[in-house]
């Protein structure tokens, strides 16, 4: 695979070795320690760690961006999946795709795309959410799950992931159906275990990549729309502002 990392991207700062928590990253440990103090005595007094965890999760800032898909523009080329895998592998992270294209025969293509590719209907890119309330975060016993303090991006620092699977337990979003890729069935949470790397993965919005999420950049339908080749007021894959209302709509 070509080296697709962006020169100068602060990878070391993003994925320090275990124990080298960056000062400005919000980790579960800091949140539990600091969060309990801040959320407070009330939760402790109530005596339920579950409530404390809920409070910690509910307290987090929203991610400022989320990748949103428009299935009526998807031609199932899998450029998003393939590039997601390739880029993450090129920067030493799990090669599992964080976006999956599902086969959804009931979805019709918008006529502007169908004019070129009439037989390529029936796909839905399934992106991962940047949950308004990140239930995975308080479950993580290490510094693996993090929230970027500048952007609110929820991501997994794989170097700190111990693959305990606790993040997966409360993940509220699932992938169910058939993958476009070789018609394989899929049934999983959107925080997914990668046995090859022995870590859990989720969409990290390609954190550290100067151009932003590679799926959005490399989608050929997006390229065709931006070039004026296909007329559309939306993109197949778009990076949109993340709000709680939008997240609920997407789920």
């Amino acid at each position, binding site marked *: *695979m*070509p080296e697709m990392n962006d020169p100068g991207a602060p990878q070391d700062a993003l994925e320090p070795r275990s124990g080298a928590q960056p000062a400005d990253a919000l980790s579960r440990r800091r949140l539990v320690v600091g969060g309990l103090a801040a959320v407070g005595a009330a939760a402790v007094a109530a005596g339920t760690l579950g409530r404390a965890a809920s409070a910690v999760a509910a307290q987090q800032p929203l991610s400022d961006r989320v990748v949103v898909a428009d299935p009526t523009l998807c*031609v*199932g*080329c*899998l*450029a998003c*999946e*393939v*590039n997601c895998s*390739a880029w993450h592998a090129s920067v030493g992270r799990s090669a599992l795709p964080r976006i999956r294209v599902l086969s959804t025969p009931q979805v019709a293509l918008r006529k502007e795309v169908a004019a*070129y*590719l009439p*037989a*390529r209907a029936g796909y839905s890119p399934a992106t991962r959410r940047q949950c308004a309330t990140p239930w995975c975060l308080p479950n993580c016993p290490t510094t693996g799950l993090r929230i970027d303090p500048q952007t609110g991006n929820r991501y997994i620092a794989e170097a700190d992931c111990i693959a305990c699977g606790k993040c997966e337990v409360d993940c509220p979003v699932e992938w169910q159906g058939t993958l476009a*890729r*070789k*018609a394989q069935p899929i049934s999983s949470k959107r925080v997914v275990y990668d046995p090859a790397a022995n870590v859990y993965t989720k969409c990290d919005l390609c954190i550290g990549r100067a151009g932003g999420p590679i799926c959005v*950049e*490399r989608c*050929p339908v997006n*390229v*065709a729309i931006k070039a004026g*080749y*296909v007329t559309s007021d939306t993109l197949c894959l778009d990076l949109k502002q993340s709000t709680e209302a939008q997240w609920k709509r997407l789920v």
Partner: protein
Amino acid sequence: MKRFEHTNATSVAEAVRLLAAQNARALAGGTDLLGIMKEELLPTERVVNLKTIPGLDAIKEESGELRIGALARLADLAASALVAQKAPALAQAAAAVASPQIRTMGTLGGNLAQKVRCWYYRDPDRADCYKRGGSFCYAVFGASDLHALFDGAACFAVQPSDTAVALSALGASLVVAGPAGQRVVGVDDFFIGPDVDYLRETALKPDELIVEVRIPASALGQKSVFLKAAPRRSIDFARGSVAALVLGSPVQRARLSLGAVAPTPKRASAAEAFLAGKKLQADVIAQAATLATAGAKPLAGNAYKVQLIQGLVRQALTRLAA
């Protein structure tokens, strides 16, 4: 063409060692490699000549298998009475490759390890093609006549080898030599799709080479056939091809492999399963032909391949029924 070092290997072990150098390429018949070097599609600093390795061109029956050295020339395969008798689909595929000149130079190993013929990949002005290390596939919205009906993933180039399709239907395996010794890989695992790595077509590592092809005893002497459709019969890459192996009547087991429609030889699994237990009658053949293209997702320019493949499957099974 840029300057390069030319080295004659005298053994497989030496070839493996020489191929470990950066941008080293294995040279057999050279019918694909020289074009790639001239077009500068792959940086090449060292060429390792395999033709100087003795004993890699044998065609023989051994341990119940048909074993063919990777340096066996396509013309020799096409003319071999042993191959024609034991694995007719392979003899027919070798005879269908390109022109007499190319078959005289080209080898079985080279035919399996060749690069794709996508016109965007081969176009010097399309350096941003995925297979060139770029980030775009022109075929998705461009001219896609040559491209994949199945299993495209970012890149839609098809596997161009004719012999690969025959060997897939015959259930062959390849012996691959590398620094850690030799390993045996099934043909269907040897070819990899762009979802795995869009820069490569095969599981060969840069310092590995194919040394032998083995066709199992279960396929030897059985009915098999290879058919190819191309614009020019005298010299051309396939627009579609089919290889079929059928055991028994009624069919105990069938293997159907499709060429030039996917990034790898494409097994027609639904058609294979349908044929089991049935006699090759006209209605069965027609239904199997339809099933062979189940799941095809044409781009703008390659929908014709659906009918082409169905027609080839009908012809192939009709021949095997006779």
